[in-house]
């Protein structure tokens, strides 16, 4: 059922009309995969064994079925992560599609002052609703929430770091460095909005994955800020 023309004659019944007998669902522009990082057991497990693919989905209705039946972020153990990435992209720096990329990220250091469940939900909705980037940007790879002792961090991974690309990875082809930077800044602003920080003095920072890797920590120098 891919909504081809021959089925269009069925009178559409949405989940709002009849949650048990609807015959149309709302398609997403991309298929998304939800991943989960389990906290390490302390027995020398590899990070790769801790990263689990949970489920993929391609409709609005499916998203809510999953969201309404999965552990909320506020109830996760420390060192857990949820990752929501476009299908086919592993939520790791090492994935060839992430190798030249970076991320916008913000740490919420006062964990009790915020509603992390609402914030993470709003960021996921911006991702699946495709309101973070414009047609042709081809930058958004996925979004991630990290549960840590001293903070929650929400990130948005991009395909590039704004440099002019060779087009090999599908993006930034023919984009000047200036244009590449503009695209990332626009996405950063949308991300800040999704985090509800658009009118605050808080700073959302962008860094390249390789910068973070070389620094050996997440405290790499921010390349851009919004």
């Amino acid at each position, binding site marked *: *059922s*891919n*909504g081809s023309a021959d*089925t*269009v004659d*069925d009178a*559409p019944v*949405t*989940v*709002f*009309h009849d*949650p*048990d*007998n*609807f*015959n*149309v*669902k*709302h*398609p*997403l*522009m991309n298929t998304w995969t939800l991943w*989960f990082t*389990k906290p390490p057991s302390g027995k020398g497990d590899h990070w790769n064994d801790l990263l*689990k*693919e*949970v*489920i993929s*989905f391609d*409709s*609005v*209705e*499916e*998203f*809510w*079925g*999953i*969201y*309404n*039946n*999965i*552990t*909320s972020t506020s*109830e*996760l*153990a420390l060192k857990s992560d949820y990752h929501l990435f476009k299908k086919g992209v592993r939520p790791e720096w090492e994935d060839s599609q992430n190798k030249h990329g970076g991320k916008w990220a913000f740490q919420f250091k006062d964990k009790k002052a915020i509603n992390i469940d609402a914030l993470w939900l*709003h960021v996921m*909705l*911006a991702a*699946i*609703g*495709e*309101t973070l980037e*414009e*047609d*042709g940007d081809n930058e958004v790879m996925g979004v991630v929430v990290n549960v840590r002792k001293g903070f929650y961090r929400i990130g948005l991974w991009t395909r590039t770091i704004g440099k002019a690309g060779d087009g090999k990875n599908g993006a930034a082809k023919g984009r000047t460095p200036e244009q590449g930077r503009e695209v990332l800044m626009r996405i950063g602003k949308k991300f800040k909005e*999704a985090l509800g920080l658009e009118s605050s003095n808080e700073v959302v920072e962008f860094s390249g994955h390789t910068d973070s890797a070389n620094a050996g920590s997440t405290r790499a120098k921010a390349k851009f800020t919004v």
Partner: protein
Amino acid sequence: KIETNKTVEPPQPTAGMQALKSARFLQVRNEALNYPEGIKSPNPALNQGGKSKGRQYDKDFLLQFQEVFREKPSTDWELKLKETVGDSSDSARPQSAR
């Protein structure tokens, strides 16, 4: 004699699960659709772009589904969750009633 209790049947998918499985994709840009009163349509401004195929949705539109569709993705969802997210604290999470 040993009584083997084999009367436990596998859980049946709910009507909502089956509806989701058999539903076709709405053509958001091309199909005239009247949502029930009080339900907002997807923001038309988002869906006039060239490549978007009518698949962009604003937050307020998406949030309307939150209380409307609460079906588990599959009948074996609990097992799948246990294998991935784990069963640390999710059993303690209150199930919201339909």
